[in-house]
């Protein structure tokens, strides 16, 4: 490995470590946003915002060596997008699926192991 790629690997390792530290907060923010959506008047905008939060983890997790985190976040994102496409109305089925997918995401966060 060249010196340049060795330095790059070290920088990526540090970046990955920092990302790992930030994931619990990102997931907690999603959880809080979801709680607010259920508790107050839900709007399309609040769901779009929630979708973007899930999309952020879905897009970055695997890049930092956490593919399962990306997968679980992607499933959550797709569920939210489905709710938006169906007119931003929360059915009991939607709520149950969202809660299940959010639990999946939280559990992955606890067990995240980098490649």
């Amino acid at each position, binding site marked *: 490995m060249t010196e*340049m790629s060795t330095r790059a690997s070290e920088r990526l390792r540090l*970046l990955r470590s920092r990302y790992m530290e930030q994931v619990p907060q990102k997931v907690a923010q999603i959880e809080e946003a979801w709680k607010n959506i259920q508790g107050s008047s839900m709007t399309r905008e609040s769901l779009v915002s929630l979708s973007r939060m899930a999309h952020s983890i*879905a*897009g*970055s*997790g695997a*890049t*930092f060596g956490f593919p399962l985190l*990306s997968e679980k976040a*992607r499933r959550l994102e797709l569920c939210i997008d489905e709710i938006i496409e169906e007119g931003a109305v929360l059915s009991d089925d939607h709520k149950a699926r969202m809660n299940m997918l959010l639990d999946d995401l939280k559990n992955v966060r606890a067990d995240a192991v980098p490649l």
Partner: protein
Amino acid sequence: MAKMQLTKILLIDDEPDIQEVVRIALEAVGGYTVETAGSGDEALKKVSGFAPQLILLDVMMPGTDGPTLLLELRKNPQTKDTPVVFMTAKVQPHEVARYKELGAVDVVAKPLDPMTLSHTINTLWSRCHD
């Protein structure tokens, strides 16, 4: 005629984490000079000063998304012919075909592999200039 060397890349992605990873991947591994922008507005302001030779463009961004920004870049005299490569997790064949119809030269799938991204970009650049 000697092939033009790729040295300057503009990365447009709203995720700071992705910006950092891609910057390391392209600068430290590939030796490129990278400028980043977190939005379409920021990108359009930076292109005249930086004059990128290639643009890496995220598809899903708040506000102006990637495909819409590509159309704006094509209207800008400084970037109308600059190769644009989309970065996205949405890489089904019909989606890739749509991106190319819009004018992207190719698509890089997310999640990205930081250690091979430079090689991928270099290959795309060579293909554009063969």
